[in-house]
């Protein structure tokens, strides 16, 4: 049986007395009466921690790399105290059949009560043979593991949207998780990778409240993906003032002006980078002088250059953007109108000459 929170706290040297103090303090700060103290204590003593199975599909492990750098809360606390990370083939000590057996065990023991976190996505071409997990196509493992899960977390752009392995022409048919698993609640945490604190934040929320966080239209937690990079960007005043970096080496770049003209995708990207920043708040792309590339948006790898705003629309032409296609159309229409006017004028002048006599006859 998985340890309860109380057992974990006791193991870490917290006394029963301190534990009870914590419970009464929690009840007080939540505005609950003293009658709730034993209830909170009871819950912490008896509620088993939710087991999490972390699967890896077609991915680069950048999500895991990000996750283990979480500062608030520290990853060690999340992994060792808060959740029961029962299976994660890159982090766990067990290997081979021993490791694979854990999935089966969790599925049986916690049927309908565990969370599956998926990093990467299943490729579907050639019966899924492009990604093999423990000797079997990953897509099969994913479907089996998710069958009895309570909820699924799609880590990163891979699981959420497909990411670079799904870029055109997508030879392996890499497919986002929600298109393979359609009958479970899925939390999408996009980004390449997602911010570490966003990842641990989502996990913490789900464990604390025992429900999935409020999601937006695209299934992303509103609390982290409710605003654009642009909305909280510290360079936003330069955008409104009309002050832009025009070249990577110009004075404006040194002064830290807005990177909009250099193709920053901040205004079209929903993520928490500009408010939470990266690596424990050290920095983030715009702060280090490069525009946002929009890595947490659907199809960012296939939607034109990272270095222009009016960017390519691939459906029209290889190098076609709204201005080139539309401007050309407007130019052609303008030229056609001018030519039409010229022909009209000529035709009219000619018919006037020919029809002078007839016309005068027509009009009584």
């Amino acid at each position: 049986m998985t340890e309860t929170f109380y057992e974990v706290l006791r193991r870490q040297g917290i006394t029963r007395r301190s534990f009870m103090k914590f419970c009464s303090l929690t009840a007080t700060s939540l505005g609950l009466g003293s009658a709730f103290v034993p209830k909170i204590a009871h819950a912490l003593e008896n509620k088993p921690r939710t087991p999490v199975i972390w699967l890896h599909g077609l991915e680069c492990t950048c999500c895991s790399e990000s996750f283990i750098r979480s500062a608030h809360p520290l990853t060690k606390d999340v992994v060792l105290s808060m959740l029961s990370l029962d299976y994660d083939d890159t982090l766990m000590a067990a290997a081979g059949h021993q490791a694979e057996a854990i999935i089966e065990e969790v599925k049986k023991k916690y049927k309908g009560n565990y969370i599956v976190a998926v990093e990467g996505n299943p490729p579907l071409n050639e019966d899924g043979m492009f990604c093999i997990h423990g000797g079997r196509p990953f897509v099969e493992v994913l479907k089996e593991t998710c069958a009895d899960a309570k909820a699924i977390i799609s880590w990163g752009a891979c699981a959420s949207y497909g990411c670079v392995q799904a870029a055109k022409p997508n030879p392996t048919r890499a497919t986002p998780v929600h298109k393979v698993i359609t009958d479970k609640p899925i939390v999408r945490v996009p980004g390449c990778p997602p911010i570490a604190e966003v990842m641990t934040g989502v996990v913490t929320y789900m464990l604390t409240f025992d429900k999935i966080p409020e999601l937006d239209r695209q299934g992303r937690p509103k609390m982290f993906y409710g605003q654009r990079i642009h909305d909280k960007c510290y360079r936003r005043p330069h955008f409104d003032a009309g002050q832009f970096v025009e070249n990577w080496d110009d004075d404006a770049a040194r002064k830290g002006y807005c990177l909009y003209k250099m193709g920053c995708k901040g205004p079209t990207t929903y993520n928490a980078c500009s408010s939470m920043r990266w690596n424990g708040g050290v920095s983030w792309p715009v702060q280090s002088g490069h525009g946002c590339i929009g890595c947490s948006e659907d199809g960012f790898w296939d939607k034109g250059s990272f270095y222009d705003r009016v960017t390519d629309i691939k459906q029209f032409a290889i190098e076609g953007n709204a201005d080139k296609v539309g401007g050309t159309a407007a130019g052609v229409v303008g030229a056609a109108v001018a030519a039409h006017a010229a022909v009209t004028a000529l035709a009219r002048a000619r018919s006037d000459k020919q029809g002078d006599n007839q016309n005068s006859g027509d009009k009584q």
Partner: protein
Amino acid sequence: MLSQQDMLEAERHGRQVRSIYVYEAPVRLWHWINALAMVVLAVSGYFIGKPLPTMPGEASDNFLLGYIRFAHFAAAYIFAVGLAGRVYWAFVGNHHSRQIFKLPIFNGHWWSEVFFELRWYLFLEKQPKKYVGHNPMAQLMMFFFFTVLAFGMLCTGFALYGEGLGLGSWADRLFGWVIPMLGGSMQTHSLHRLGMWIMMSFVVVHVYAAIREDIMSRQSLISTMISGWRMFKD
């Protein structure tokens, strides 16, 4: 039905009466306000996508793009309210006011008139015909390149506006669905800009055709949109 009615009206009246009242005051007023709003929208929109050169001085002393965006949003509201008013007028106005909202596509005669106008514009017909409202070709163009496109611009525009207002704002609740449907915010921006170019191409054709028909078809077009009366010159 509509165009047939128009044509009969024009042919009958064209000889006897010199003018017919076509565009009622609200339609005319809307036309010019809408035209102005569209000019402001196109120019400000162009500079939102491709901003002007960097402003010198402190950020706190400048608000250039802020003002440009304000102009865009203000004109957009006028455009939207005007369009809503115009839709209302299509219900209560005269039958000409409904022309740009519905096409008599099941009317064979109307289609033959469309092709007549096409031949006329291709210099294959010698004599123009007279119409009281839009000619059928113009009606077809107005429907697709103005009415349909205008609603497209409205939906994408307010969806993008909703991004600034934030999740749960009225614009997000009413139009937020547009963004995932079109494949993301960037894609919506691109299509909105492309729509602007199509609209401006149509404006060129629209103005040209109005001037040309005013001269060639011996009936008033431009002054009709000012006074409301269509004059027949012979």
